[in-house]
């Protein structure tokens, strides 16, 4: 076990790795009452084509398998519902699926050893039958129906359809009612066996717990330690091109009161890893904040012209693409869209701007580190994005210069955008 410190925010991380390749990260907060467990699989809805560990052959699965698996992991051979076990000690348990990962969580005050043991047991012992798989379809289809009535979900899904030509993000994480109906227990076992391997998973705990006893539980959990990382996982990327699928599209959405849009600028991402990649992403963050953040000239001017009532921006890497996403509610969406693109191209940035925003970013890092569950989420993101927790991030943020921002700016293909706008259905 090694102990590392995240410098500048007073957080210590205890790291360990099991023989079977599972990486463990423990982040104790001795002053707190609560603990949070997060058991993460690097397998989410963006994976649909891969080499099956059953047959060694390439397969393409229906959409929504990762999410379906997440629902079904709560099914156990002895018929006991995990919620039944956790609730005995007032512990909350949950799970969620995204495009990149599936995560199983538990949080509580007492009984961490038994609860952790239990969580490790059920995620490591799948029990799928034709009957219990069939039964789940009704619940999942109701879940999908719920999202289909939410305007923001509809707009988001449509925006991914104009942005991507091939990427599975074109489809909702949960799949579609017809793809869900195609899922069988054989498919679930095939995906489970391929991806739920120790070297493709992380285990994190944050909050109030004793490091030694938690490590003991993990090292003595039979189901987990019996598991071997069998084969290398081979996933086929979608081959998503840099060009957007559709540049501009208008749709009508039920229940929308004021028009809303999502604008995505799609650019190739540099081939970077670890700290270099982090510095690049911090530079994109700062760039967006300076141009579009709370204290930007952009916001002040657009508000004066009554051009938006909601607006936010973010950046993300998908495959080898860098995406800038702008979400807004506006009575004059086309005009606002043009202004965003113009500012992204032309807005001048000064050294003072960058220093001010760096201070904000560092303050936010400290504030977020005050909440163990947020700290866990950040650690998971860093593990996926950069391959490790960033122990040096405050110094890395401090090191960002105008040159870094200019480099990002040169990389952005501002005219390669996709724009979807939803109008009220009268």
């Amino acid at each position, binding site marked *: 076990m090694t102990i590392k410190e995240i410098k500048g925010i007073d957080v210590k991380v205890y790291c360990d790795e099991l023989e079977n390749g599972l990486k463990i990260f423990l982040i104790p907060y001795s002053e707190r009452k609560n603990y949070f467990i997060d058991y993460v699989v690097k397998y989410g809805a963006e994976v649909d084509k891969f080499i099956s560990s059953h047959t060694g052959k390439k397969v393409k699965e229906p959409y929504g398998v990762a999410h379906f698996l997440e629902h079904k992991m709560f099914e156990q051979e002895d018929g006991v519902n995990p919620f039944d076990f956790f609730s005995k000690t007032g512990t909350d348990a949950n799970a969620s699926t995204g495009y990149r990962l599936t995560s199983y969580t538990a949080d509580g005050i007492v009984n961490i050893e038994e609860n952790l043991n239990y969580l490790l047991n059920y995620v490591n012992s799948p029990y799928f039958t034709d009957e219990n798989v069939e039964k789940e379809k009704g619940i999942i289809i109701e879940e999908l129906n*719920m999202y289909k009535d939410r305007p923001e979900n509809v707009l988001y899904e449509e925006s991914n359809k104009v942005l991507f030509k091939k990427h599975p993000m074109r489809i909702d994480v949960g799949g579609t009612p017809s793809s869900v109906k195609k899922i069988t227990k054989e498919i679930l076992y095939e995906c489970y066996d391929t991806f739920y391997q120790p070297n493709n998973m992380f285990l994190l705990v944050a909050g109030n717990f004793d490091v030694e006893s938690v490590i003991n539980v993990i090292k003595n959990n039979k189901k987990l330690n019996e598991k071997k990382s069998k084969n290398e996982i081979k996933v086929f990327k979608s081959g998503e091109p840099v060009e957007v699928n559709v540049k501009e599209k208008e749709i009508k959405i039920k229940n929308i009161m004021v028009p809303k849009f999502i604008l995505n600028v799609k650019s190739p991402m540099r081939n970077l890893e670890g700290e270099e990649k982090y510095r690049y992403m911090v530079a994109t963050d700062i760039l967006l904040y300076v141009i579009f953040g709370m*204290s930007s000239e952009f916001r002040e001017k657009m508000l004066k012209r009554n051009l938006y009532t909601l607006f936010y921006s973010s950046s993300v890497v998908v495959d080898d693409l860098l995406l800038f996403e702008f979400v807004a509610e506006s009575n004059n969406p086309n005009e606002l869209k043009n202004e965003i693109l113009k500012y992204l191209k032309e807005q001048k940035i000064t050294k003072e701007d960058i220093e001010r925003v760096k201070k904000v970013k560092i303050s*936010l890092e400290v504030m977020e580190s005050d909440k163990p569950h947020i700290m866990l989420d950040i650690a998971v993101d860093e593990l996926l994005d950069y391959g490790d927790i960033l122990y040096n991030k405050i110094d890395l943020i401090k090191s960002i210069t105008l040159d870094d921002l200019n480099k990002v700016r040169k990389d952005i293909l501002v005219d390669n955008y996709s724009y979807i706008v939803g109008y009220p259905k009268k």
Partner: protein
Amino acid sequence: MEYIKKETPTYNLHMIKTNKFKTTSIEIIFSRELKKEEITIMNFLASIMTYTTKKYNTKLKFSQKMENLYASKVFASSYRLGKNINVDFNMKLLNDKYAEEGLLEESLKFLSEIIFNPNVDNNEFDQESFDVIKNDEQSQIERFKEDSRRYSTLRLMELTDSTKPFSYNLKGYLEDLKKINRKNLYDFYKEFIKCQIIDIYIIGDIDFDKTEKIVSDNFKFDIVKSNQNDFMIEWNNHREKIQEVVESDKTNQAKLSISCRLENINKFERNYVLNIYNLILGGTADSKFFKNIREKYSLCYYASSGANKLDNLLVISSGITKDNYSKIMILIEKEMNDMRKGNFDDIEIEKAKKYYISNLEEIEDSPNQIIALYYSMDKLGADDVETKKKMINKVTKDDIVALSNKVYIDTVFLLGGDKK
């Protein structure tokens, strides 16, 4: 953790000292009776006060000031407690260690500027800020309808009893928004800042004497403290027959919402038994609703209940396929009847108690929850954590059965699900 309350002629100052957090949190709570016609203007006022001030008179200056205070967050929020409405001005800032010395004083001065020095000229609010906030309020009111779950709950409350404060839309009303101008907004401000019960909470690694002095130097209210109103909403208009309303809408999923009256419940039932009843019925992922309606019959993704002790109300909600409406109603009534008949075991009671206690313990990890706890002890006569733990363990099966028989379905509302 150390708590101290200082009463002054115009406000109460509550200070909580703890070194558990890297931040200090401040809440200034303005409390008054909720009047339907005041909701919109009160939201408007709280928004404009946290948008610009006289000194920081543009959005840019205001935002840069917050950034210079190490990304301190300032925002106003309003929420209903029974018959009353609270408007909170919140601020969260880093401890000096991560920022610089004197940040607390600087931040309190900024909050004082927000409250006492609004962006007003010639007895009117600044035009530019007014226009921006007006657009924003309008879109917030309109946007309310976009969330059909939230919308159907409000419609349910209107159908249940439109004269009671629980049926008011806290986002406000378009017809009231139209009446607001820069002048009457300022008049309202002057009245708002005077006719209030004001409580200031500060929690963090603070020095009591120093903090008290900074507050008294910077917060000089020109009011006479009034007495706290009572909170409870009473409504004993017992319906002979359950009211059932079905409204069609071309959505994929129908929203089922049910209101239940809690009739003549006593203090112990209100504060303790009700929690256990609700947790067993539909409050968790281990509840009767979840286990039976979702897991056993796979009829929905969610089915849950929530109790509001100040409103004497319990609300049940679920998202369903419209064709399953009567099937689900039978199941919901069956679960409620099972509660009345005592068809639940001691394990379920024990679990609900553990869950309740666990939530109590968690309060200590959140500055805002700690403030809410002290506020409820101060204003609502709530028990402290240790007493609550003792009392919850006194709840028996008989208590729960007795309460179950005071829960009456009032109105059933089904919205939408008509897209084919």
